[in-house]
């Protein structure tokens, strides 16, 4: 089991709702229609296990419909205007974790989008998600 998955289970932080295949496909279509990128396959695989994670003052966003709107990837991305082909997949009080469809990279940026703190390649997706989520019990 991956370290991130272990932490999520240990902290009982995952939301209960599981996404349906149809929800994933419909969301991807809406994203593309709105100039947002396809969610990367490794992230979708993670969401199939944990469709949104709520950490301390932080979250990894999941596929709607979700009871917790704060973790709804569509809802959050509607409120914040990003560059084309970028999408927010996680947040804390300092930063957003973006997925950049052009560069095929994950990026940790300040909330005002003015500075990039770290970038992660696709195969570093677990490190990327760990960089945005905070737990009591580490």
């Amino acid at each position: 089991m991956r370290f991130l998955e272990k932490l999520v289970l240990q902290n009982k932080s995952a939301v209960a709702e599981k996404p349906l295949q149809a929800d994933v496909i419909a969301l991807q279509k809406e994203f593309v229609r709105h100039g947002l990128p396809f969610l990367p396959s490794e992230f979708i695989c993670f969401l199939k296990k944990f469709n949104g994670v709520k950490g301390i003052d932080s979250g990894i966003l999941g596929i709607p419909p979700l009871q917790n709107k704060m973790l709804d990837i569509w809802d959050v991305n509607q409120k914040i205007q990003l560059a084309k082909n970028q999408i927010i997949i996680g947040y804390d009080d300092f930063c957003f974790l973006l997925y950049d469809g052009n560069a095929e990279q994950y990026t940790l940026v300040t909330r005002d989008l003015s500075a990039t703190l770290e970038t992660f390649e696709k195969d570093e997706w677990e490190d990327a998600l760990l960089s945005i989520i905070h737990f009591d019990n580490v």
Partner: protein
Amino acid sequence: MSAKGSKYARKHLLIEPKTKDVCETISNEEPDNGRILEVVYDDLTFLKTFDMLDLNEQIKTYRVLKSLAEDKSPEYDHIQKSSAEKLQKINERIHLAVVENLRYSLSPEEHHLIRMDCYGTVDARRSHLLSPYYVKLQKLRLKESLPAEKYIFDDAPAWQLFRQFKSFRQIELRLQKYMSQMRFQPEMLKVIGVQDFSDLIFKTFRKNSKDKKASFYPSNRAEFVMELATKKENEIRKILEKQNIDERYINSLLNAMKLFGITDANHVIVTETYFTKRILERLKRAKIPCEQYRIGNKIPQPLINTLMFEKKGEILEARDENGKPLNKSGFPSFEVHHKIAVSEGGRFVQISRVNYKNNYLLVPSNVHADVLHSADKLLVSNGKEAYYKRLEFTKPNITFMYGLKPDEQLEMNWTNSVSYQQQEEQDQEYIVSYAEVMARLEENRKNFDNNRSGNADDIELLVAMIRYKNHKRK
């Protein structure tokens, strides 16, 4: 999304980002919106109507007003102006104002330190972030270990950035011991950078070699929550009671805040207030003495606390009328907000102040995201990032807020306490300038390079440096 929209959008009530029409904006928010419309169209008594809404409705109304205030279409000029005025009035009542500040941005390294200091955790550093000096010198170990005090952190330019924070000062000895144990060369300290030190902290404090996150210090954020809940328990309770929240959740939340700094509903174990037949049976089964307790008696706080610390809190877990655990999704979760943005931490000469308790605010998650961060914007002047727009408090001591009414806020002057003043005094001794520190580090590295002879190790170092520089350029 188009007016017709997709089946997906209609099914999930997705919200149109750009508003074209007042009714369309509102209808996208929620099906029953009579009172939201009243706030939008009634210019005289809108505040009264606004106060009658519950928190979720208030937030929806706030989002609608904001959306309308930003609509630049000339045909909606009147509604745009009146919405902007209403938003301003709502903000003013709760001591908030949209401010535009000059940029005081920080370096990514300083950001990294502030985040670590706030949560008390450090992530594993990926190898390409580490400097070649650190990578190489880690391999060139001493034959015998040196005493910990031989590792002089005063010599380390990059560590001076860490030292600005109490949390990092407190772990210096642990790091010295780790370096001694690993038989590292003390000279390493002069040339290693911020990411290298983070790696050192991570490796010193990780529990297992496969871990990717480590806790190195009690989190500042949790300390703030615990102290706030202890000192303002009654006041917070009164505010929450007014919202018709289940009393059992209020008790359990306040307790979780006091004991562990927990503020998220999902992580709060909601316990019964009074003994029930089921709880007495569960206590008996767990072999916890309970003969003295009767159904209907209040559960004593020491028993709750003992079970919580022993991770047996579930024994007391509250149930609904059907005997099922309570659905916590309707209970408010709280988050800690930085009143002065971390990215604007350069506004303080002493950057550790960003994580001082008087810069923290405890606020429900939805108010945090949808109100307090709603105005965040970077403004550009003459082609450069020049100003930062944000909602800031006009009263410096606000430390807790529930909703968007003035009587749902609490003030506390953290700066009066002896511990605050002591920390401030100590921190002031360690203020450094990022640019000076980096210049010293660069100079040390040049000297290090010049002093090395051309042996095989140096070639390896040179190759590592070229790779590192190429990566940074990329």
